[in-house]
């Protein structure tokens, strides 16, 4: 029977008996670690996103998704412009307006249109080619019972 083993009587090696790492290991280790952690001054955005923590990426993805949804809702519900009927009508060439109004279905004739220059003199310039004075004279020269200018 051998005497009991006692740690305090055992010749301590000082270090655990493990073989050394490969030669030059501690010369290369700092370079390998620095390659993992060192960040260049101007890191591309995609690399930054890729390396960002999971909670940052999740937050950014949620924000983009919600932003896209909100933008699509806003664009879908808001009017496309601030155009009023008057502005829209101004955009139509006057000659087309006259042609439309004097067509058979609208029941508007040239007499109706001739009264307009008292408020909008410009409208007659394109198709009557006369000054307001000439027009007034021409109208005054018409017999009162004549309903047509033509």
């Amino acid at each position: 029977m051998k005497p009991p083993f006692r740690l305090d009587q055992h010749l301590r090696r000082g270090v655990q008996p493990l073989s050394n790492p490969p030669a030059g290991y501690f010369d290369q280790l700092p370079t390998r670690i620095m390659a993992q952690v060192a960040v260049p001054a101007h890191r591309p955005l995609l690399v930054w996103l890729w390396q960002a923590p999971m909670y940052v990426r999740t937050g950014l993805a949620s924000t983009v998704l919600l932003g896209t949804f909100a933008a699509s809702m806003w664009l879908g519900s808001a009017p496309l412009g601030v155009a009023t009927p008057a502005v829209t009508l101004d955009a139509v060439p006057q000659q087309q307006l006259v042609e439309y109004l004097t067509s058979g279905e609208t029941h508007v004739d040239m007499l109706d249109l001739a009264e307009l220059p008292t408020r909008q003199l410009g409208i007659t310039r394109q198709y009557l080619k006369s000054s307001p004075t000439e027009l007034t004279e021409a109208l005054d020269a018409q017999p009162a019972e004549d309903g047509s200018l033509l």
Partner: protein
Amino acid sequence: MEDHEILAKFHEPASRNLAFNQLVRKYQQKVYWHVRKMVVDHDDADDLTQDVFVKVWKNLENFRQDAQLFTWIYRIATNECLSFLQSKRRKFFLPLNDVGAELAAKLEADPAIAGDEIELKLQRAILRLPDKQRLVFNLRYYDEMPYEQMAEVTGTSVGALKASYHHAARKVEEYVTTADNLGFAPDGAN
């Protein structure tokens, strides 16, 4: 370079990388051997050492200097080792003894221990200890770390550490004594 100089340089963006390089060069061997004693295998120790320094890099800005820098790094290394061994056990559904046996097999294959029968038995006994107890044993028996510093590293009270070391030492002595008298390892490992 002193720790406070490294930390001061680390907080300046222009010298951050240089300061961290100095830190790695200063502490790499201590971290590596602390990890290696726990996981035995060089490749595992290599991976874990790199992981430890990556964590140090990520958290060094928040280091408050309440503890010594190396104690703080040691603590990170310790947690990494314990997590690694725990995940290994969980991954392969291994009981405690099987991981100890695996580590012992790696150690026995190591040429540094070849031929030293009593040392081999001692190492087998140490590797059979639970991870935390083995950590305490290594820190005290091999590194001769004061209990107060061990308390900072492990986050455990001095009294609990003394008790843990006492139990670990008793288990190791019993295992080696039994192995010595039987002529083979009590757990069947030879």
